[in-house]
């Protein structure tokens, strides 16, 4: 255990400070082509014409790839988890978000690639758009996805992530107060300093060497292999040096299309997104719409919670069903609430597809839960620490999905914040521990939720 407690320098620190760390864009190989994408200039449209013949004739252009070149056009990011595919690698007869890639042109230099993109003949027939997740369910809302406006393929073909625990009806009958709030954190762009970039080298033995800035190499390997219908042993990913990701480089954003162009051109190809493309077309953290209604007693117990979540997935599903599932498991935050009724929908809009960012699905709900806790405190005039300590998770309390907690730290965290901020706790609260509930910490309504099994 030499490392524990020791001040270890970063293994890559010296490379970083001397400019010797090699990021994907720093690789140079002989004969490399530069790529530029044709991206949708509109938010939602049918593609009524796509002709690349003039682009192929532009001097310096070596390959133009479109949907017709992709062996398996659709492959879901979570196909491995049984979530069906809905997103084409390159748009075919429809575009659903501005910036969606339609074609990639590989050429001697960026100017020729840009000229190639400009020479692609394409026509669109614009369609109505949907931006507000709350309008997605209206009968007159624009329909923006072939599955409808919300994801319909949770287990047993449920169209939502649903949690039912305890007896929500009774909780609301027993409550002294019903406190509601709506929370709507906005989309956030990750803004990694390094934009999306990949370089693919077709090797003489038929393999592809893929230089990637992905945060998830093995995951990307599977995605690339599936789309290209190339066995894994023909793909070598060189990665691990990432110029910032924060979740935004979990999606396999550029590697597969670059590989396709490199295969078609028979030359190494590099595709680096401009900062503008990064803002326009890279995925963001989702905006969320969360409604919470709590059944609360005058002395500060939360008996029950009803919650509705609309997760804005953007134009395609990607990881959103998974993110919403994590979200649902955490919808009581660091607190124990015995009676629950949660419905969450993954809603499609014409935004860029949304993705992971630092605590996928959970940061949104943590924000909503803590803000709601403060709202209850304000409305009922409670002590903010004592209210939280009362409802804080203890050993053997159970989560919304009935996991029995073995070592929750909520009580200790709250006590140390109180200490650090000079907030005096009443003796009973100062003495509270994470140990299983008993006595005054175990009112009748919490008895049934306790479990020592299920972890």
């Amino acid at each position, binding site marked *: 255990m030499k490392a524990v407690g020791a001040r270890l320098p970063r293994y890559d620190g010296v490379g970083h400070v001397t400019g010797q760390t090699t990021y994907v864009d720093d690789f140079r190989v002989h004969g490399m082509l530069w790529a530029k994408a044709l991206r949708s200039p509109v938010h939602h449209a049918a593609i009524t014409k796509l002709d690349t013949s003039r682009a192929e004739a532009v001097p310096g252009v070596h390959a133009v790839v479109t949907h017709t070149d992709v062996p398996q056009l659709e492959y879901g990011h979570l196909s491995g988890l049984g979530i069906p595919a809905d997103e084409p690698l390159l748009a075919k007869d429809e575009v659903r978000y501005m910036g969606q890639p339609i074609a990639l042109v590989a050429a001697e*230099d*960026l*100017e020729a690639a*840009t000229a190639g993109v400009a020479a692609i003949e394409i026509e669109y027939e614009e369609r109505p758009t949907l931006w507000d997740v709350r309008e997605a369910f209206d009968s007159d809302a624009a329909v923006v996805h072939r599955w409808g406006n919300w994801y319909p393929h949770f287990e047993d073909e449920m169209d939502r992530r649903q949690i039912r625990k305890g007896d929500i009806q009774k909780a609301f009958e027993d409550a002294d107060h019903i406190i509601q709030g709506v929370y709507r954190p906005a989309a956030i762009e990750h803004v990694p300093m390094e934009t999306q970039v990949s370089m693919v080298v077709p090797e003489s033995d038929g393999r592809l060497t893929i230089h990637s800035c992905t945060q998830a190499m093995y995951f990307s390997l599977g995605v690339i292999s599936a789309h290209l219908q190339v066995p894994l042993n023909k793909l070598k990913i060189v990665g691990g040096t990432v110029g910032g990701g924060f979740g935004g480089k979990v999606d396999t954003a550029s590697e597969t299309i670059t590989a396709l162009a490199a295969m078609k051109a028979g030359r190494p190809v590099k595709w680096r997104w*401009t900062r*503008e493309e990064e803002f326009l077309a890279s995925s963001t953290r989702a905006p969320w719409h969360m409604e919470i209604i709590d059944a609360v007693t005058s002395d500060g117990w939360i008996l029950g919670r009803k919650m509705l979540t609309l997760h804005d997935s953007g134009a395609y599903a990607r990881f959103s069903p998974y993110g919403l599932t994590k979200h649902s498991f955490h919808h009581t935050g660091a607190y124990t609430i015995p009676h629950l009724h949660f419905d969450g929908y993954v809603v499609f809009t014409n935004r860029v597809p949304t993705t992971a960012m630092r605590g996928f699905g959970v940061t949104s709900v943590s924000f909503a839960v803590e803000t709601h806790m403060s709202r209850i405190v304000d409305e009922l005039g409670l002590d903010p620490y004592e209210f939280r300590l009362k409802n804080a998770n203890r050993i053997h309390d159970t989560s919304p999905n009935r996991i029995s907690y073995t070592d929750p730290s909520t009580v200790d965290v709250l006590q140390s914040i109180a200490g650090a901020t000079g907030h005096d706790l009443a003796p009973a609260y100062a003495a509270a521990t994470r140990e299983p509930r008993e006595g005054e910490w175990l009112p009748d309504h919490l008895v049934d939720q306790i479990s020592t099994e299920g972890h």
Partner: protein
Amino acid sequence: MAEATEVLTPDSPEAAAAAFGEGGDVTIIGGGTIMVPLVTHGVVQPNKALILADAGLEGVDQSGTTVTIGAMTSVSALSELDAPLGPCAANLGDSEVRDQATVGGNLCAVAPPEHPTGDLQGAFVALGASVRSTGAGGERIEPVADFLADRDNRLVLDVTYEQPQAGAFESLDRPHTHHPTPLAVSGARLADGSIQLAATGAAPTAVRLPSAEAEASDPDAAGTAALGDVRLVDDAVSSAWYRERILPVLVRRVLEQLG
């Protein structure tokens, strides 16, 4: 890239004026902080580029009460000057951008049509500065406001103003982006005692605030009056709604400082 571009690097003001001629087909590169990225990304594809780096157009000359600033003077070279120009310059961008950004480029800053740009313009308008430029018809000297209204195809040579009795500059905090300050107000009590006010971020170029000037003795009334002089827009750094609430505050503070 831009193989075809003819690049001219004149080494004196006269050579620059001659190389510019009547303008038209010439793209001027001052500091390049706006223009070079536009060229890199193919937004502008110049046939002919005039790089002013060695043209000898920089320098701040203070003779008596007259201040003359060469077009290629860096923004950082202005930061020690009196208000409103000094603090306005010190507020622009960051130290590295200020070292490279020039006065001429700021007066001619291009941006998408409805996006306000060019922070120094406001200070110059408030100071009643005049711009000397060359181009079709030869040299022209005119008030900065007139120049801003008709600045296409001109090569800025220098800007001149009379030292005011007093000056003030107030702005919203500039976010960390390459956007100009979202909203700023410059004010000056000129040598003749009259008060001039101008805003940037309140219209596509700097605007004078005559209605506010008319109420100068009552800063609160002047703040409200200023709203009649501007065309506020929504953009990435601020909504028109927010600008509408802040403009009167900035005008009031500037007037209070001018006393």
